[in-house]
């Protein structure tokens, strides 16, 4: 039985579905056969994952630039927004 080989375009187009585990076992097998022989797609996959990690680390949590605490005048302005009563 001949095995189907998919193109780089198919791999890259459906990469998110592959990484999210949304592909059928058959389709995932086609991905893995392609990745076994295609260094370019392996690099693409690796740098795609690195992109997500870089974004999370550059913007997530405490990585945000600027002062983390509100200025006292801003705190006062916010507290003045409390509804009466």
């Amino acid at each position, binding site marked *: 039985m001949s095995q189907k080989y998919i193109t780089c375009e198919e791999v890259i187009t459906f990469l*998110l579905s592959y990484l999210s585990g949304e592909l059928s076992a058959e389709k995932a097998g086609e991905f893995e056969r392609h990745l076994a022989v295609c260094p370019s797609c392996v*690099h693409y996959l690796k740098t795609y994952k690195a*992109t997500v990690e*870089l974004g*999370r680390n550059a913007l*997530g949590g405490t990585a945000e630039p*600027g002062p983390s605490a*509100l200025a006292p005048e801003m705190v006062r302005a*916010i507290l003045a927004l409390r509804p009466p009563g």
Partner: protein
Amino acid sequence: MIEQRMDSPTLGEPGPEPLLLRLRTGDDAAYHELVIGYGGRLLAVCRRFLANEEDARDAVQDTFFQAFRALPRFEGGCQLGTWLHRIAVNTSLMKLRSRRSRPEESIEPLLPRFLDDGHQVDPAVDWDEPLRSLEHDETRRLVRRSIDQLPDSYRNVLLLRDIEELSTAEVAELLAISENAVKIRLHRARQALRELLDPHLRQRAVAGGHSNENTRPV
């Protein structure tokens, strides 16, 4: 994940639940504690969506304004921090929509291109490990600048999914688009961000000697 971020133990005692009870009694100290405890993190959230500092600060004020009025109806189904986070995200998105004055640029030029046979026009090479290390402030700045270059509708999905860690369903509801559209936008946003980072992070790796010939699959 969001609950962990917004309701971390660094807030000190008392925890969010007793704080909520005190807020409902109109306790001045509790309101002060709420603003001091969550304000900085909410400002960080709003800054991610709104490049303009004044807009981000306005969004934080609007967030608290709405939260104060909604507190009597907040049933505590999620943690206080999670609830405030959602209001801040919503408020930032609304402000962003009101600021949009020109048509959005296409993301197409930032997506990978393919030859007729399905190979990439520009085969991918690995990134330089030390360069992509986040110990480098320069890399962090590069990533932030690159995210800011994404068209808003893609940037927002990337921020909501990858940074704010909302689920696909939550993002779909927030943006009033289908879950499939969220997935497509997220994938394209990540691809475009990768494309923007690639020339900076692959520079040294190229010296390793990858050529178009040996990166083609058989």
